């Protein structure tokens, strides 16, 4: 069934348009479709310089050479969205990244209390389903992961920590995430990983990019 999705193309200055869609799964489907076109580089898609997904929007930035590109791009995005399947089942399979975690975070007990699960059940829930990178934006290499066990939805901490160590694995709302470097942060911390999430000398520099599927594993269990 291809009902198509309602999209709104909103103005964002002389170089960009902001495409607003119904929900996050619509963002992910549209982003995947847009990326395949910008990679192929036909027509106006060749002049798209950056694609930034967020919770309900996709920002498309052009090279700014020709102002006439923006209305053309707007029409192309609407046309593209109309061809997408209405269900989130149409997401293309992503690259799988396994993230080993030491589940010894300072908020494990608090998350257990908030969810009514035992600590063991929290870890089992976090490792039991695959997550998917929805979008980034907070810091280089930080990824908002979605699609986890719905029992793990917990609010942010009341008071953010002034410094969260690099590699910390946390929860906030419907998201899980890994801090690529030490920074202030208010997420509930379950543990930490030794993986380098971000390395400016690596290509690609970010391990977790939109579309990547993340599989957390418990270091203690793998021995």
């Amino acid at each position, binding site marked *: 069934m291809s009902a198509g999705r309602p999209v709104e193309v909103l*103005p964002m*200055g002389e170089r960009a348009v902001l495409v607003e869609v119904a929900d996050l799964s619509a963002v992910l489907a549209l982003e995947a479709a847009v990326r395949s076109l910008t990679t192929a580089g036909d027509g106006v898609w060749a002049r798209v310089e*950056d694609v*930034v997904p*967020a919770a*309900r929007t996709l*920002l498309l930035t052009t090279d700014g050479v020709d102002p006439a590109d923006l209305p053309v791009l707007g029409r192309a995005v609407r046309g593209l969205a109309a061809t997408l399947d209405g269900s989130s089942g149409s997401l293309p399979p992503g690259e799988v990244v396994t993230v080993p975690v030491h589940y010894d975070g300072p908020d494990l007990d608090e998350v257990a209390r908030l969810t009514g699960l035992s600590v063991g059940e929290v870890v089992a829930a976090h490792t039991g389903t695959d997550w998917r990178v929805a979008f*980034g934006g907070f*810091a280089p290499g*930080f990824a908002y992961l979605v699609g986890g066990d719905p029992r793990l939805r917990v609010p942010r901490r009341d008071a953010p920590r002034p410094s969260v160590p690099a590699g910390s694995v946390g929860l906030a709302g419907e998201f899980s995430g890994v801090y690529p470097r030490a920074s202030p942060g208010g997420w509930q911390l379950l543990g930490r990983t030794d993986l380098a999430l971000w390395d400016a000398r690596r290509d690609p520099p970010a391990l977790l990019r939109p579309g990547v599927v993340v599989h957390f594993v418990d270091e203690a269990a793998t021995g």
Partner: protein
Amino acid sequence: MSPALEVVRTGPLALLEDDGRPGLGSVGVGRSGAADRGAHHLACRLVGHGERQHRPAAVEVLLGGLVVRARGALVVALTGAPAPATVDGRPVPHRAVLHLDDGAELALGTPESGLRTYLAVRGGIDVEPVLGSRSTDTLSGVGPPPLAAGDVLPVGPAPRTFPVVDAAPAPAHGPVVLDLLPGPRTSWVGDLEALAARSWVVGAHSDRVGVRLTPTGDPVRRTPAHRDDELPSEGMVRGAVQLPPGGEPVVFLADHPVTGGYPVVAVLTEASCDRAAQLRPGEPLRLRPRPGAAGRR
């Protein structure tokens, strides 16, 4: 000896900036690059890097104070904020092609107006790029560190093209007026007149991330229909005018965050972004819908 620029002294802040690193927004890295792109491009053109070529890294000097020494003969140009300049003590003009002999010392005083002066070198500053760019992104920390006394900056190979102009005309002065285009959330404040009807002063705490605008009268309020609306974070652009709940907008510059959660009620034109990058705290300004854009509000 390969040509280089030796940093003798810096003022408040001197950074390397080029056209930035577009394409990494989805992994949390913004484009960055020169804050006043027009001034950077002009400086590059003056030293012979053509409009259609890759624009090399130049020095972005905040409030003057930079002193550099040429290692080898160099061709350089100054644009942007008109910091008084001397070469070995002799005054030299901005927006002109300057020839530095080996050992010559170029010194910048404090500009009377504007914030950022660009020093381009024929061949470009050729430090190691990070993710395809030599720009320092002050928000994400990506790129080379700020310049410091004692740095020796290698100069790259000269392009095949030669400078086509000896000097460029200076821009007209006058009261600062920035041109607005509609943003994705303009309706949250009604229309662009909500911004155009006020006069503004540049706030303190303005930097390469953004310029804060303080209204001289009442702060800008959302319309009743949008007063309690929540906005999930969305992608941001240079020139976006974000309106936090306090009613004092922030105009994003080159090092803006990749995403933001406050409504973007207008977006500056590219030319006005460059102008905004030269605004000093305390400076008065006005905002207006871009002439001719009224029908698109």
